[in-house]
């Protein structure tokens, strides 16, 4: 971890987003004193954190790891009793809490069964129940819905909402997850980290505004598209940018300069060009869009041509839309669209978004494109291998795999990673120098 500044507002659900290995769990473990940070400082409940005294503050924090593991000889009820005692609950309070949490998390039926007989989802629920013992002010949940079935996930989301809302609310939940839809449904603010550093933080609304500049984006699908129609749409005074939708030949993403409803205008223009407007929907940005944009630089979000944020960036510039032929020649996901830089975002999270499609965009030679595609695939394979290894570690810790088998798998995984890294290095070397710094083919703004 480095350069992490995480501020969790009191009272509410705060999402903590990042890819696998981004440092989410590490951060949460540092907060809980399970890992010792090498440097830095942080405050808990407004008090400076001292490792020697942190245990006192832990009485106000409930923590549920991604894979909660409890002593195998205990039943679910016993687990709550044992940890409840450590949290200072009296016997009567322990009885009440146990009953309440078992009922709330629907574990009553399995309360007197040993923990190893629990399904993964039940163990996750038990972990959350333990975290909720004593009604802590701050709940730190690491991937709480991991292993839960859809019904249980929905119930848990309701439970978490209930903890922070209403006149009895006021609790704070720090929710680490890469389940973006879950974060979107629950959290009002998020922190996105990558590679151990914070990329962006703030209320979801503000981050969305940061991306879009606060204006509307429509996705319009026509029966057919031609260049004059695109030119006419672009000539409308309220239209800031028109760009093709990657997955569809006859759809346009249209960004407006202001919050105006132009659907009727689009329909009329379509008729004038002897075609039909099949659909025109307002695009809603999701946390997933935010995440992809800020972390991966793969923009699902609407393209934005003009700078966003304070006027420290260059003034807006409207780039002519591409020709229909250009659109038709474009592969579904292949052509570089001038994606934002993954690394540029942390330094200047409100930097101008890149151009969508500019006629002046340098055309890539096909061998280079092929190399870039291979590099992307290799990078993806590398990530997958690393994920598999980290899962393997978890399996070993949970006793789901024997040591000998683990060693074999780990060895083959490491060999595979070495092979991929070697291939990756070779291909990166083969790239022309002007693209070598950006091997994924992304064009920096």
């Amino acid at each position, binding site marked *: 971890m480095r350069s992490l*500044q995480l*501020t*969790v507002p009191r009272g*509410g659900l705060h999402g903590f987003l990042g890819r696998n290995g981004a440092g989410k769990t590490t951060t949460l473990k540092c907060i809980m004193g399970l890992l010792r940070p090498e440097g830095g400082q942080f405050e808990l409940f*407004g008090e400076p954190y001292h490792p020697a005294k942190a245990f006192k503050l832990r009485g106000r924090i409930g923590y549920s790891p991604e894979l909660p593991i409890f002593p195998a000889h205990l039943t679910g009820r*016993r687990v709550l009793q044992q940890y409840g005692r450590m949290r200072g609950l009296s016997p009567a309070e322990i009885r009440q809490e146990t009953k309440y949490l078992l009922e709330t998390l629907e574990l009553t039926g399995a309360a007197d069964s040993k923990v190893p007989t629990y399904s993964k989802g039940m163990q996750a629920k038990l972990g959350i129940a333990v975290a909720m013992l004593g009604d802590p002010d701050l709940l730190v949940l690491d991937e709480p819905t991991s292993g839960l079935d859809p019904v249980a996930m929905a119930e848990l989301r309701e439970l978490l909402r*209930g903890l922070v*809302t209403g006149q009895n609310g006021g609790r704070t939940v720090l929710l680490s997850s890469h389940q973006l839809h879950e974060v979107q449904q629950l959290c009002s603010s998020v922190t996105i980290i990558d590679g151990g550093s914070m990329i962006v933080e703030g209320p979801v609304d503000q981050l969305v505004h940061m991306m879009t500049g606060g204006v509307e984006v429509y996705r319009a699908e026509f029966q057919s598209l031609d260049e004059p129609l695109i030119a006419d749409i672009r000539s409308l005074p309220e239209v800031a940018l028109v760009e093709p939708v990657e997955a569809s030949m006859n759809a346009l993403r249209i960004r407006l300069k202001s919050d105006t409803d132009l659907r009727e205008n689009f329909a009329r223009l379509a008729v004038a060009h002897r075609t039909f407007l099949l659909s025109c929907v307002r695009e809603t940005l999701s946390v997933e869009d935010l995440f992809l944009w800020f972390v991966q630089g793969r923009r699902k979000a609407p393209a934005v041509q003009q700078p966003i944020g304070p006027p420290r960036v260059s003034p807006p510039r409207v780039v002519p839309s591409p020709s229909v032929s250009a659109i038709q020649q474009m592969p579904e996901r292949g052509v570089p669209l001038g994606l934002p830089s993954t690394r540029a975002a942390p330094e200047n999270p409100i930097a101008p978004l890149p151009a969508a499609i500019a006629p002046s965009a340098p055309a890539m030679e096909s061998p280079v494109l092929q190399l870039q595609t291979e590099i992307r695939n290799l990078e993806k394979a590398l990530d997958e291998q690393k994920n598999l290894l980290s899962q393997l570690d978890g399996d070993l810790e949970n006793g789901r795999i024997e040591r000998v088998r683990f060693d074999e798998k780990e060895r083959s995984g490491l060999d595979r990673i070495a092979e991929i890294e070697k291939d990756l290095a070779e291909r990166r070397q083969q790239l022309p120098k002007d693209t070598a710094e950006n091997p994924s083919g992304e064009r920096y703004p």
Partner: protein
Amino acid sequence: MLIFESRAQTVPSTVGVPGTMVPQAGFPRRAHGKRLGLGGRLLSVVRYEMHWDSRKFWLYGSIGLLLLLFVVSWVAALPTLGGAPGGLAPGSTTASENYLRWLRSSWWEDGTFLLMSYPPGFVAFVVGEASASGTVARERDKGTLGALLAQPLSRAEIFFGKYFAKLLVFLAFSVAIVLGMIVISTVALGSQLYLIWAPIVVFDLTMIFAFYAAYAQFLSCFLRRSRSVFFVMVLTWFMLFGLMEYAAIQGVKLLPYAYFVPINSATLALAGTRAYFANPNGFVAVSPLPGATSIGISPLIPFNPFSFGTDSTFQFALMATLGLVLGTILFLVLGWWAFRRIQIKG
């Protein structure tokens, strides 16, 4: 910098939406639990640990059974040493006869000296290693340590709470062993005197347990797997035992090193304490060990390997006890140093 601040924020809410389980007013606030004192926190860990240990009926049962078998066979073998327990042939002078005479003529503790020095020592060791070796390593092994460390307890409380839990178990074992000794020696050798020393024997046995528990917990903090701890401890015991036997055979004087060999130290502490209380003036220039008599420590080792020279009985007691206490403290400090540095990764 991580900050949990007091800025309020709004939350996307489905409160009150039909079909949701969230009450309109949110979930009510519940009991927070009071801040426990040091004793309460330690006790919670002790109970947690003892509850875990209480599941090991098979372990303690097997140890008890082994001990019983040993004692029964030992008592059954007594007549072969030179006569029936009822009496010796007058004028018998063979080593085995002398040994049996010594057993009978001495006070009850002498009669069970071997029980004291080896079998209970071994039992203490086995119980200590099997139980204490798991205190930390088994939690790391099974992945439960993270849940424990996330509780509002300091690492010192967890570490020493676990250790105290072992001590309580060991104390119970010591009492059981001494009671067993009294019963067995009474049955086998007739009525016994000096039962007033029973608490001292309990104390000494607990000291052995405490030492082994500290050693086991020290290893437990360094090694990730409880099996590894068990293996290292068995190895240690055989090394110590082998060293003692080798020294005895070679006639090497073990002092002052014997003070730091736990089994010997406890025996010395016991003997020295007994002699001191028997003669409060102390400084008796006679070795307190039964083995220091002309009979020898046992029929198998016909000389006394622990020749204490001019040491006084009080010094024996003091030094031996000090050896145990220092060893216990040393391993507790080292174990605590290692425990503080444990990080829950992965």
